[in-house]
């Protein structure tokens, strides 16, 4: 995936029916300002639409925001589709309203990081840069 002369490519997605996209858009802008190439899907994306967009756009990272509480139903499906399509190397991060107790189960299904309320965009940028760099080295 990531070679050295290409900027990090990120798909910012809103899975499910939740329309609260303030956070997703702020993060999309911050990632773009940090030099990444950002594709925003818009709201109301099905798992198929998200994984398809990720494949087409050849992204290094998928960042998803869910505030409706549907994360435990929607995210396993997306992780399953990524696996089926041989896209396990894509780094998946999520944010939104995710209770503390759900974080470990989400990580266990292959999600790299869960960003809670109050996370700075700076720390998300840093996390993505580091993780992509480390993965390229593997």
């Amino acid at each position: 995936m990531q070679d050295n002369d290409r900027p990090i490519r990120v798909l910012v997605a809103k899975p499910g029916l939740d329309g609260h996209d303030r956070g997703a858009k702020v993060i999309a802008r911050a990632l773009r300002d940090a030099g990444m190439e950002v594709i925003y899907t818009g709201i109301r994306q099905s798992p198929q639409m998200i994984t398809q967009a990720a494949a087409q756009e050849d992204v290094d990272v998928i960042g998803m925001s869910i505030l409706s509480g549907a994360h435990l139903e929607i995210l396993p499906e997306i992780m399953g589709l990524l696996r089926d399509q041989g896209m396990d190397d894509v780094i998946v991060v999520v944010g939104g309203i995710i209770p503390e107790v759900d974080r470990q189960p989400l990580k266990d299904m292959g999600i790299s990081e869960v960003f809670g309320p109050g996370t700075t965009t700076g720390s998300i940028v840093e996390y993505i840069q580091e993780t992509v760099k480390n993965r390229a080295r593997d």
Partner: protein
Amino acid sequence: MPSKDKKQWLRDTLEPSVKKFPERREKFQTDSGLNIDPLYSPEDLQAQGLDYDKDLGYPGEYPYTRGVQPNTYRGRVWTMRQYSGYGSAAETNERFRYLLEQGQTGLSIAFDLPTQIGYDSDHLLAKGEVGKVGVPICSLVDMETLFEGIPMDKVSTSMTINATASLLLCFYIAAARKQGVSQDQISGTVQNDILKEYIARGTYAYPPRPSMRLVVDVFKYCAENVPRWNTISISGYHMREAGATAVQELAFTFANAIAYVQQALDAGLDIDDFGPRLSFFFVAQNNLFEEVAKFRAARRMWARIMKERFGAKDPRSMMLRFHTQTAGVSLTAQQPDNNLIRCTIQALSAILGGSQSLHVNSRDEALALPSEDSVQLSLRTQQILAFESGVSDVVDPLGGSYYIESLTNELEAKALDYIKRIDDLGGSVEAIEQGFQVREIGDAAYKHGQEVESGDRTIVGVNRFTTEEPPIEGLLRVDEEAALIQIERLAKLRKDRDDGKVKAALKELERVARTEENTVPAILECVENYCTLGEICQIFRGVFGEHQGAFTF
């Protein structure tokens, strides 16, 4: 020698003092970016040309800046209306009864996302969303369960429902009929404000133009049949939550209101037939004085829009009546008890601003739907403000404050500038189609985010005065069983009902949708024959098409 005017005071008294003891910030601004002087005096109001009779007047009199009721809360305090709904109709019915027992005076239904967007609980896209952010209502049967044991002629009910507003109104009318309550006896509100869904909230279904027709169908139907129903709650709340400033909240709300009024006039309605049933919904944010000024400016702006722009004659058409909710976006996951204090300050602004109805958020809502204990605290916050603090004993207590009047004027002027820009784009619907409001709000949200990250804007417990703390306990979690039970109920309904009647009602609805006839009676016919929400919306999707959201950020 005392200063003879503000200018002299600034120069001779303030400046030397500030030189010795510098101020905390280089410049002070409201949340909308309005500059704040260190002090306001009669000269500021004079400079703005404030005329008491023309711009303020007495409460209950045009332009209603000081209140639409002569005595505001001295007769009856505001309606305490906590927004709630989750899991299933039966579970929400229990929460409603609990709230009414605790002294709540009106109901406010939160629907789950599939219900808001027009999908039945068993639809593929509903997976994981059933009962999560509200109650699923797929048919008349669900609405009957929701109101079991609650007399629908006694309680007023607000429904946060937009794309599917006319359907839910029909479910409500039909459920009331089952209780022996006729449609002229029920009272309440449907949000029915589709335009802000395209701008901020996202629960649209069809494209803007056919959706505007559905909105006005409700105005028409209710003007003739449901006289005590508020046919729309034109909402700034969600746009503000998405990042808008107070100025943008006022401007975009009234620009939308203007579009609805124009649409209704174009459909042949008389302004004073539907004007008195238009209601509004604003947020109460943290900046206490700016918020109070915003509510006062809103009353004056609406009165003038209705009288001067649209030529309304009935004073009731000019009276801005509004619900307020404290700001969800201001709640923090860190140090959640701090949210109680934020909510109290915000609620105070709503009351000082003369709100007719109020929802106070709960301490745990940055993390989940509120628990029963947290909701009780929210209601108690309202009751303490209403019955202990004394703020409800006098009308418009901040009226005449040099600062508040000055802010009221400035907010109004800035918002009117924005409305002019939207008018120049061709009105709100055109501006939405061009992505204008979304861009403006996105810019404001990003700026706010940067200010928090740089520490320029303090959020206690988040970027200052932080502590390490264990995660909050006792959060409400929606039982996964609830969705399964709902899907079973729906399967049973589909089996038990009269298929012939269902098909006939849906066919008639499709015919009506293709004409210019009012859709509400046909929807009501569908509902009473147990057609489901998803089936009815499927008809509309076929006739009107589906709205595609934007990908810009």
